[in-house]
């Protein structure tokens, strides 16, 4: 919780004040201003991903259903309207409510709402965070005491109420939820955190037809913050305190009609380590931001992801890694597999502060295009203010290896089976990291969709 973990270098977050929910008219005005002005406008960071155009101007807020398992020493509380039914009333999402719940969990005092943990700064400047700070519907709070080990698995499902049969699909999502998860790991604690975002059954059926009528449009906006205190290990919006360790898995497989916005912020204190695996598989437009602050000496971040596109999906992953202390190490391996007329966008920004000597940072973003119409955009961005660094990056865009396919077919495997083997092999390095069978299943389904995806979206 030392101030030095707060990055002095990022632009300040637009809304960091302790923000009790505004009175409804003021909230509506502030939200309207954010959504209309600009927060999600066509800035450099959103160049390929028109979030602003896709977001509704008016919508009905929903509370996603949350299935949660907590094991070991992980303690979980909630604030606001996020409602696992087994919990009765909870305090509203206010600074006081959040503080009271942290206290009830036995966690040290936290920064005020707006940064539920010390990890908020890692997401500095994100319009999504600003919006969530204004009006999150509910949040889960996770605390792992120093030196202990815990595991939390959460599945969020947005049950969109069936709309009356309309002749034309709505142009923009009309319902949605703004949720958060904030985790904090005490010194030397270890946390395994899994978050899965899935569609409701009915919507999943429509998914098979790639956006056929009947799918209800909706959006999810979810922030995960993790603070790892020194030596702690974290996975999700996690604040990793000294020496803590985090293992995080995030799998997004929303129905095709959905808009999915996610942000994951991780703050690593000295000696802390985070291993995060992100699957971006569903929704019509999915934008997932990952901000990691390597804020204490010797912190490590091992980040990998797979984005698997079919139909006309747009899957955007936007990473910002900040090496703020000496001798930190980071690795990013993000693989895109794109079919149909889908688009994949990878932005990987690595910032190395003047004082961060001995930095090692590597980044790779191979993309495999399995149709004529799919496209990948890869944007490595290195910003380095120290001479004593080793940074590498590599981006490629390729197609299925016809030589390998011929070899597989010459042994009796059909083209479809051969393509599946090659696609699985391509993302295998990422999928091998998953210990969550649910996430593995979502990935397998997405691969099958991408390989079978028609060039033109269904009417």
């Amino acid at each position: 919780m030392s101030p030095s973990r707060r990055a002095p270098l990022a632009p300040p977050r637009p809304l960091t004040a302790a923000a009790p929910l505004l009175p409804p008219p003021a909230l509506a005005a502030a939200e309207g201003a954010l959504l209309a002005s600009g927060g999600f406008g066509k800035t450099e960071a959103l160049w390929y991903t028109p979030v602003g155009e896709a977001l509704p101007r008016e919508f009905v807020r929903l509370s996603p259903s949350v299935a949660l398992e907590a094991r070991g020493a992980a303690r979980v509380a909630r604030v606001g309207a996020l409602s696992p039914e087994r919990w009765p009333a909870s305090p509203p999402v206010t600074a006081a409510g959040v503080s009271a719940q942290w206290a009830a969990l036995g966690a040290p005092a936290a920064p005020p709402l707006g940064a539920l943990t010390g990890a908020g700064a890692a997401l500095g400047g994100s319009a999504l965070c600003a919006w969530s700070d204004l009006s999150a519907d509910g949040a889960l709070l996770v605390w792992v005491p120093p030196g202990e080990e815990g595991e939390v698995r959460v599945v969020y499902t947005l049950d969109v109420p069936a709309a009356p049969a309309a002749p034309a699909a709505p142009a923009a999502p009309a319902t949605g939820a703004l949720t958060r998860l904030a985790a904090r790991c005490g010194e030397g604690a270890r946390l395994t955190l899994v978050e899965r975002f899935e569609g409701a059954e009915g919507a999943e059926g429509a998914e098979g037809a790639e956006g056929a009528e009947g799918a209800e449009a909706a959006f999810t906006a979810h922030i995960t913050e993790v603070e790892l205190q020194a030596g702690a290990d974290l996975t999700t919006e996690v604040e990793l305190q000294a020496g803590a360790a985090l293992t995080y898995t995030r799998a997004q497989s929303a129905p095709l009609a959905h808009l999915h916005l996610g942000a994951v912020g991780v703050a690593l204190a000295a000696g802390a380590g985070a291993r995060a695996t992100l699957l971006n598989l569903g929704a019509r437009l999915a934008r997932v931001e990952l901000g990691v602050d390597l804020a204490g000496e010797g912190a490590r971040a091992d980040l990998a992801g797979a984005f698997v596109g079919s139909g006309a999906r747009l899957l955007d992953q936007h990473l910002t890694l900040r090496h703020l202390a000496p001798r930190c190490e980071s690795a990013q391996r993000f693989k895109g597999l794109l079919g149909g007329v889908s688009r994949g966008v990878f932005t990987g920004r690595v910032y190395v502060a003047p004082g961060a000597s001995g930095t090692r940072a590597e980044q790779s973003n191979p993309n495999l295009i399995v149709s004529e119409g799919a496209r990948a955009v890869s944007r490595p961005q290195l910003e380095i203010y120290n001479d004593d660094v080793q940074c590498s990056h590599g981006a490629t865009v390729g197609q299925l290896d016809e030589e390998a396919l011929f070899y597989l077919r010459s042994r009796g495997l059909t083209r479809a089976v051969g393509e599946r083997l090659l696609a699985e092999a391509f993302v295998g390095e990422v999928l091998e990291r998953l210990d969550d069978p649910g996430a593995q299943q979502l990935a397998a389904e997405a691969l099958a969709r991408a390989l079978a995806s028609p060039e033109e979206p269904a009417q």
Partner: protein
Amino acid sequence: MSEMLLEIKDLHARVAGGAEILKGLSLSLPVGEVHAIMGPNGSGKSTLSYVLAGREGYEVTSGSVLYRGEDLLAMSIDERARAGVFLAFQYPVEIPGVQNGYFLRAILNARRAHLGLPELNPVEFMKRAKEALQMVKLDASMLKRSVNEGFSGGEKKRNEVMQMALLEPTLSVLDETDSGLDIDALRVVGQGVEALKGPARSALIITHFPRLLEHVTPHKVHVLSAGRVVHTGEASLARELEERGYEWLIGGER
């Protein structure tokens, strides 16, 4: 006359859009026989193997290939394989990320499904795989590696022969399987191929040099030149070619 497994008649083929490489090749392979096809560089040996396997990018402009009396050229690459045609590659392809053991079980089960046999479970498969590995003197650890990735030249060729042993093809086409092998690997590969001889199985051994034929005795040797079979002889022809070269046969041809 014995029953024919493979009948190639007046086959003309080219790389798509390119010049003709096979120019009226005819050849008959009886059931249960092993024939060698020899010839200088550029005579069309590899093209023949690719046309038989069905590789995309090769065009047959005229002629016919009958496999067990059926039109082989009308079958897809993988249909041919499941029907028992096996091509041992001159340069086996490395496939990173696809585990060799998984791959071998998948191809064996694809072949078995075609034959109406039940799938092998992992335990039954391992038993078969270990026998085949032993035959080509490969270590079982190679099952855990990616297909051909990082294999030495000799290991790749042994892996080809190992697949052949597992799949028990009706027609094996070995495309320069002897190239790039040291003496020991050559012996292992040769013994492997010899062990696969059988009354119901045939093979075409395509080779530039007769070294492999010291380990496998063919029933006939065909000499290929400029896309045609110009001479057919007994096994002893291989040795004669080694001593005299191809000139004396090819010169008379054109």
